[in-house]
């Protein structure tokens, strides 16, 4: 296969995978939703869970985006330095988004700042947003597709605390945001927390925390314990599906951290809605692909 054929095949795969990701939730999210539904015993909460699962069934059957808000496209890319399409990767992803927008179809969700006009294509200034990690001595690429909906982006926030405010300050920050803004963001929510030395690092880590599969834990034992305690605490509040109240509140809580400055303790928060549309695909140097988040998926 020559270079141009590889590029064309790559666009095709990524367009189809983006299309697919708008219509099917990843396995870990589905499993957790099923567990939460089975634990629920209030009538109103179950009306919501029934509607959610019926919606997913229809989305699959009719091949339609399960939520009308197909979000802004974000790609979290781990690209090998020897991946053959590394130079044009960002242009190819942009093309994939334009194509998936027509095929799925995805909602037009990119409004240019200051011009206040919807581009109508789902691409625009710096959009799709691409987060880069360069992997040495590798000739493949791993790409997370993430659809960042408006509702579940609204609770997002970052703040730089003073160290003496402590981890207690972080816990307070997270709980305040979730109880005041999270109830409108299509719970049960997936809560991502970043802890670092400055606002932008904490914010970015908080989103990366939502890429990890549910059930995985923070590599630091104290971090893993805090994930569990915050999840238990939020569940005890009983926000329920749609904020209507119920037995639990969150799909999970994940924390990612970076070293902090001695004088700062920054916290970032990102939330994912119950329809957490996150897909992971691996593509090798011959542009063969493997989907890692949706078992048995055909695109």
């Amino acid at each position: 296969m020559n270079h141009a054929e590889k590029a064309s095949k790559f666009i095709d795969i990524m367009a189809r995978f983006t299309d697919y990701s708008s219509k099917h939730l990843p396995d870990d999210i589905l499993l957790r939703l099923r567990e939460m539904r089975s634990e629920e015993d209030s009538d109103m909460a179950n009306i919501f869970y029934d509607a959610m699962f019926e919606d997913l069934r229809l989305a699959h059957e009719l091949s339609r985006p399960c939520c009308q808000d197909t979000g802004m496209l974000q790609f979290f890319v781990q690209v090998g330095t020897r991946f053959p399409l590394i130079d044009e990767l960002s242009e190819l992803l942009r093309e994939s988004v334009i194509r998936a927008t027509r095929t799925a179809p995805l909602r037009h969700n990119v409004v240019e700042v200051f011009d206040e006009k919807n581009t109508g294509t789902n691409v625009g200034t710096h959009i799709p947003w691409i987060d880069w990690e360069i992997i040495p001595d590798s000739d493949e690429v791993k790409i997370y597709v993430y659809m960042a909906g408006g509702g579940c982006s609204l609770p997002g926030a970052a703040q730089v605390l003073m160290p003496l405010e402590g981890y207690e300050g972080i816990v307070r920050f997270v709980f305040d945001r979730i109880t005041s803004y999270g109830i409108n963001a299509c719970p049960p929510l997936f809560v991502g927390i970043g802890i670092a030395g400055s606002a932008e690092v904490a914010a970015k880590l908080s989103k990366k925390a939502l890429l990890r599969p549910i059930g995985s834990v923070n590599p630091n034992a104290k971090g893993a314990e805090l994930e569990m305690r915050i999840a238990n605490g939020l569940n005890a509040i009983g926000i329920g599906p749609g904020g209507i109240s119920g037995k639990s509140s969150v799909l999970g809580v994940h924390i990612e951290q970076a070293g902090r400055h001695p004088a700062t303790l920054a916290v970032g928060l990102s939330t994912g809605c119950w329809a957490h549309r996150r897909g992971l695909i691996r593509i090798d140097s011959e542009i063969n692909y493997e989907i890692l988040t949706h078992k048995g998926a055909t695109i």
Partner: protein
Amino acid sequence: MKTKVLNTPIRDEDILDLTIGDMIYLNGYMVTGRDDVHQRVVLGGKKLPVDLRGGALFHAGPIMRERDKEPGRYDVISIGPTTSMRMESTEDAFMAATGVKLIVGKGGMGDRTNEGCKANKVIHAVFPGGCAVLAAGQVEEVLGVDWLDLGMPEALWQLRVAQFGPLIVTIDTKGNNLFERNKKIFNEKKESAIAEINTHLHYHE
């Protein structure tokens, strides 16, 4: 919790007996309207190009597909509720200006909308968030669209719906607000959850 079917045009007496937590289904006329429609009507002072008296407003920005051979005719692909709270600052004025009787969205609305619902005899209800294909199946016809210059999500789509729901009443005409009540409960429970976690945060030597 009672269940009731509403048909447009909705009259005051159809909704006065509804209470928060009741379940309703809607038949009839509904338009979509979110941030920009409220901006135009309430802040921009423009007249809504449709008659919404007795009708329903859906806080929603759908995915629509124009028919290949019938330009200007659309089919709905996916249409779920959007966050109602974004319209809080303008919803009371929107009600007064349009005569809408049912507002459907996602999540709660605040005191200002609560007062507006009481004064104008309007109810707010939620459709389960994210359930956009389910909702699309309950739209019988896309009757038309205005203000398409605002873009697909923000335009004023006119719909005929059948058995649209489940809708849970979250603000009734008597001043009750389900989400504000829930928020109080959540905030009380929050304090004890935080206090418990704080007993385990001894990371410093």
